[in-house]
């Protein structure tokens, strides 16, 4: 994996007790009627950016959070996405085209809601059809999430120990997928 060059903002070491406690309140009307007098204000999400380099190209990824430390899966996952986007034509030696950036974007936003702070990073691999696959192979479990053109995303699960095997479409089965990912060691 190439060395990362980052243009990251300074990470603040605040611990945020809960995702939802620091979520923005939705009241759009009444906030203009009041002025808070307490010095203790609700934390405001900040824009963060990070650069990733691959095959001589640089990509910047932006997101908003409260400056908390990033989970361990963040960099490998983002680097994986960028590595796919910089694949040259015929990368598979069988005439494959470029990976569709919209598929990468959709995969980024779907996976965001599924990974916990300590989840193992999935591998990000390209498909010859222009789609992508996120995959885990851990402790006898194969888990693959497939994103492809003109197809609804889905995931495939196989437990080689128990023999269980199933396939589910997304986002309908996001809850199940979240549970399976959470159980990956």
């Amino acid at each position, binding site marked *: 994996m190439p060395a990362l060059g980052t243009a990251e903002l300074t990470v603040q070491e605040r611990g945020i007790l809960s995702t939802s406690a620091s979520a923005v309140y939705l009241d759009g009307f009444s906030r203009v009627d009041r002025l808070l007098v307490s010095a203790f204000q609700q934390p405001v999400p900040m824009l963060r950016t990070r650069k990733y380099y691959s095959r001589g190209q640089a990509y910047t990824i932006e997101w908003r959070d409260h400056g908390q430390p990033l989970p361990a899966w963040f960099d490998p996952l983002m680097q994986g996405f960028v590595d796919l986007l910089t694949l040259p034509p015929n990368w*598979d*030696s069988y005439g494959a085209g470029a990976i569709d950036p919209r598929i990468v974007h959709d995969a980024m936003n779907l996976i965001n809601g599924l990974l916990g702070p300590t989840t193992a990073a999935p*591998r990000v691999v*390209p498909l010859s059809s222009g789609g992508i696959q996120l995959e885990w192979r851990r402790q006898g479990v194969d888990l693959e999430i497939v994103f492809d053109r003109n197809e609804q995303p889905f995931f495939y699960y196989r437990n080689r120990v128990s023999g269980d095997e199933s396939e589910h479409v997304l986002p309908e089965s996001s809850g199940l997928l979240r549970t399976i990912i959470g159980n990956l060691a």
Partner: protein
Amino acid sequence: MPGRVFEDDPSIPGDERLLRRIPRSWIDWDEDGTPAISSAAFKHEELSVNLESVMVRDGRPPADAIRNYAGHGLAAITAAHARSLNQAVARDPQPEEPAHGVVYGRKKSGGVGGKLRDGATWVVTPLQSEIG
């Protein structure tokens, strides 16, 4: 050429080795440097392979399939294994590759790509340090 349909060719015996080039994007090296193949390598509906027997007939070693592809590995599955997963195995010679064949059938769902991968063996093992 997308959109073609292939029928199974019974003249291809079950023990025929079907050689598949594996680019580095489909390889995951473990801590010991052992390369593992992603199921993505075997998910294309019209999966291109080289028929080893044709290469042998033409006096070409299997490694000739990756002659122009530095850093790639070369894996093999058998025709019988592909057929056991409801795939058709067909010849599809091309001017630039007379040994070209196709493993044809839906692979993305049902874990077929992974099961094809599970039956694959390395013919030319890629080196982790090799540039490709």
